[in-house]
């Protein structure tokens, strides 16, 4: 099959800033003709990989909220705290602003990421071309806020290292903490794997 001008697109090498042609539908690694550095890769499977990571995150979201993220041994009694219980306690002790921050970081952000990215992937699958600006903006938000879900993981690490007073008071990590950390990491990887340029792809082909 002969290659015509339509099989190539023009791009810029990240390493040397030079303009170069890239084969459009070839998925292997392509190199810059000027500096031999790898060109930014466009992976056809990137959105499929994103969907798979997202599915894994959605599955783990259930145990992450069901199991306690830590146990407290206080004067011989053992209590446990899930993410939601921790937030309710913060509200109950009159620390509503802090509770609100943790609620956003630990409940809203993972939900927004899972549902938002699923929405983006479904819209691409249907081939809809509407609201491209809004979808790009949604992706930018998802990419930016992901890290803030890690707050609760750091809180657990701090509580466990600080409160080590034997039988008087001590914290132990729960199963939920590792699940929750996995949700955060998987959604971050899914957001990284998602290729936002595919939102604009069909327009490029029409022109």
């Amino acid at each position, binding site marked *: 099959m002969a290659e015509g001008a339509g099989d190539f697109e023009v791009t810029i090498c990240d390493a040397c*800033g030079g303009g170069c042609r890239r084969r459009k539908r070839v998925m292997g690694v392509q190199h810059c003709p000027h*500096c031999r550095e790898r060109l930014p890769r466009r992976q056809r499977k990137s959105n499929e990989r994103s969907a798979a990571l997202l599915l894994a995150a959605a599955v783990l979201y259930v145990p992450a909220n069901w199991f306690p993220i830590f146990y407290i041994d206080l004067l011989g009694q053992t209590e446990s705290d899930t993410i939601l219980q921790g937030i309710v306690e913060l509200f109950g002790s009159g620390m509503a602003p802090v509770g609100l921050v943790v609620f956003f970081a630990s409940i809203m952000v993972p939900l927004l990421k899972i549902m938002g990215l699923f929405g983006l992937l479904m819209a691409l699958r249907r081939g809809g071309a509407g609201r491209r600006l809004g979808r790009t*903006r949604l*992706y930018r938000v998802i990419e930016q806020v992901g890290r803030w879900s890690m707050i609760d993981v750091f809180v657990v*690490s701090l509580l466990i290292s600080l409160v080590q007073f034997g039988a008087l008071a001590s914290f132990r*990590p729960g199963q939920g903490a590792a699940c929750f950390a996995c949700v955060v990491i998987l959604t971050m990887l899914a957001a990284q794997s998602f290729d936002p340029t595919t939102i604009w792809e069909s327009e490029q082909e029409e022109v």
Partner: protein
Amino acid sequence: MKEVLAPRTVRCRFCDAMQRIQPVLPGHHASCYRCHSRLCRGGYQSLDVPFALSVTALVCWGFANVSPFVSLEYGGVVQTNFVLSGSLALWAAGQHFLSILTGLTGVVVPGAQLLTACFVLFTLRRDASLTACRRAVRLLAFLGIWSMPGVYLIGVSVAAVKLADLATLSAGPGLFAWLLVVLLWSAASLSLDPESLEQRFG
């Protein structure tokens, strides 16, 4: 170092649109004509400013690692923590995955990011044609995704609130150094996204 004067061609990271943009002045930014995402920030006029900020942040990072971070008093016993203590305690509790995750994202990656930023700015101020420098710029963008010193700091304040009715948490010099790291880095990073560094290359 090349003066930033000529218009140049860039590719939008979000929609792949190629476009010519004028040099971006400090305090301004360039947006993509098609998807309105930010293409490039003006940053500081001179690279000396982010360089000074990054070096100071790196020194603060080193100091924060070796000085007491926070301490907790409970029933006459004082427990003093260092920055990495949380991740070490998780390792001791058998949560190896969580330990490595918090250690990397909270402490190690921010340090590596500061070191890379210092290297990039140091070489850019001398000779912008180094391939190593271009690679370091890409490494910096990658580290930026996984670097969470600010999230760690918020985590400390949430932990302090949670412990408020049990015991009082007092800040050590390490915590103030950490706060400085976060503030200095957010000021330095105005000039440190790869798209903005791109316009400094010759």
